[in-house]
């Protein structure tokens, strides 16, 4: 079985001090730590598990600058066989639709039975690339997949995670796109030695021209949405930031909770 996984290198922003850049449409990347998008990590692991079970090979594709090679190498170290990086100045400011189109041009000529993406990315969070990619390739898709139950006779039976703890089981024809939910597996650790072992594997790089694309098919001209601005939500009423040592803060929390009737 031939599996393609689309992955992205994203900044880790959970504990970082975020600064909005000069354009007002993005954040400063300087000083941030980058890693594979969390959902994509689960997607790569799932692809490797499927390969181990059903045979075949895994190809990873990432759209991004040279630094994205680091993320591709991590996937190679996990067990992917081939890596492709898509890069061109014209790809800048692509929305989910344009990214799906660029990916589709790279994937189109390749053999594949299954395409995996993460449910969404940690940075842009569109959650559109997987389903849009399926539409462009005119193949079925299932989103928020938290279990791949079986793959047999050219079909896949997968579980989708719904609200309220509900699972939906869907059966779809291959090839198909699945967007993978976090928690579907336990992604393996990638050791430094593992990364070193794949350091010499060539990463194929394709640009706009090599993908037979026109400039107006990518970036802002090729997108359906344009980011106007990003901003921090204004501080709401009623919030109180406590300061001091851990002990002092704990004391203040307790006295506030007592005062407000939270604890007896």
């Amino acid at each position: 079985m031939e599996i393609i996984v689309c992955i992205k290198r994203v900044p880790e922003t959970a504990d970082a001090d975020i600064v909005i850049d000069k354009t007002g449409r993005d954040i400063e990347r300087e000083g941030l730590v980058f890693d594979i998008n969390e959902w994509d990590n689960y997607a790569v692991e799932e692809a490797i598990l499927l390969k181990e079970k059903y045979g075949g090979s895994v190809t990873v594709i990432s759209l991004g600058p040279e630094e994205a090679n680091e993320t591709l190498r991590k996937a190679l170290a996990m067990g992917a066989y081939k890596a492709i990086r898509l890069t061109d100045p014209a790809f800048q400011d692509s929305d989910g639709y344009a990214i799906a189109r660029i990916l589709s041009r790279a994937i189109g000529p390749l053999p594949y039975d299954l395409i995996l993406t993460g449910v969404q990315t940690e940075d842009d969070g569109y959650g559109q690339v997987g389903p849009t990619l399926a539409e462009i390739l005119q193949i079925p898709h299932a989103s928020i997949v938290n279990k791949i139950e079986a793959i047999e006779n050219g079909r896949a039976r997968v579980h989708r995670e719904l609200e309220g703890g509900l699972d939906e089981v869907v059966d779809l024809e291959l090839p198909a796109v699945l967007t993978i939910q976090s928690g579907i597996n336990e992604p393996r650790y990638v050791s430094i030695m593992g990364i070193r072992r794949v350091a010499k594997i060539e990463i194929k790089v394709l640009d706009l021209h090599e993908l037979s694309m026109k400039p107006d098919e990518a970036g802002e001209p090729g997108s359906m949405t344009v980011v106007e601005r990003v901003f921090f939500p204004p501080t709401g009423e009623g919030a109180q930031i406590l300061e001091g040592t851990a002990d002092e803060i704990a004391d203040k929390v307790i006295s506030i909770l007592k005062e407000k009737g939270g604890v007896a």
Partner: protein
Amino acid sequence: MSGEKDAFLQKHDLYGCFQCGKCTGGCPVSLKSDLNIRRLMIEVLLRDNLGPIVRGEDIWDCTTCKTCTLRCPRGLEPMNLLIGLRTLLVEEGHIPKTLIDALESAYKYGNPWNAAKNKRSDWAHELALKVLPQGDQAANLYFVCCTAAYDTRLQNVARCLVHCLRQIEYDFATLGDEEICCGSEIRRMGEEGLFEILMHGNIESFKKYDIRSIVTTSPHCYNTIKNDYAADGLEVRHYTQVLAEAIGKKNPFSGEIKKVITYHDPCFLGKQNRIFDEPRDILKNIPGVTLVDFDRSRENSLCCEGGGGRMWVEASGQGPRLAETRIQDAVEMGAEILATACPFCLLTFEDAVKTTGNEERLRVMDITEILDEALCE
């Protein structure tokens, strides 16, 4: 995992083992875990495939206290065999999630605590320390340690140590936010490649700022920089050595502490580096202190279970934690303060004081904190 076998036999000299069992006999975690290091020595030798041996959960129980290696009458190194087996698991990638988080954090942020790089020197905010990357100069580097830099409890130890070092007029600076993890625990978790990256990063910093002399908060940093890095022309000392030497010349700590104190020898300071007397000398020099020793002290000190990556993974065994046993022993001896000189010991003991309900009876303190009180009074 069969290809590695020959390399293992050679590297760890397994044919030299005559199965006397002193390693397992001395192993502190064998009291409560199925981990049996003597059995591992022979199984690696006899089995064709190492996979089933290493995939047991108990491989993560070892605290790398090194008792097995230190007691081996044949001079073999069972602890390194165990770490080598962990390396196989790390290479395979199937290790506990909490260890993956610690390792990935050490790679990305330079510390195993998932804390931001630019918050590393927050603990020293109002101390006006000299910082080498800011252009300051000093005769010695104070290597703070990730745990002392980020853990809110341990930050107090770092601050107290700064007070003490200033009191003895010791000239030092830190690397500020440029300090990265020493890699001690990373190596002992079996991630040798990452350890090398961290080691080279630190050695580069030492060269860049022309550092010849280092003092550490943690016995783990001390041990790894001194023995694992083994860099030429670098003098590495644990703070207890620096303070004991200064106190020997002229005791600046005059305040009285009328308490019964017992001292716990951290494995990485005591049995692994034979620094037994310096911490005791410091405590004995504080007026009013009555120092009592554990039955199991010095070379026989009972491990707190904080080393070897165990700060990031729970042991498989049942029964009381060794730290809880230690706390009970201290209380029975009539100690009012349990002193130690290691960040991991401090954290494991403070937890154990709470879980055994001894918060009213026993205080757990780092030696620097006791000295700081002696300074203030």
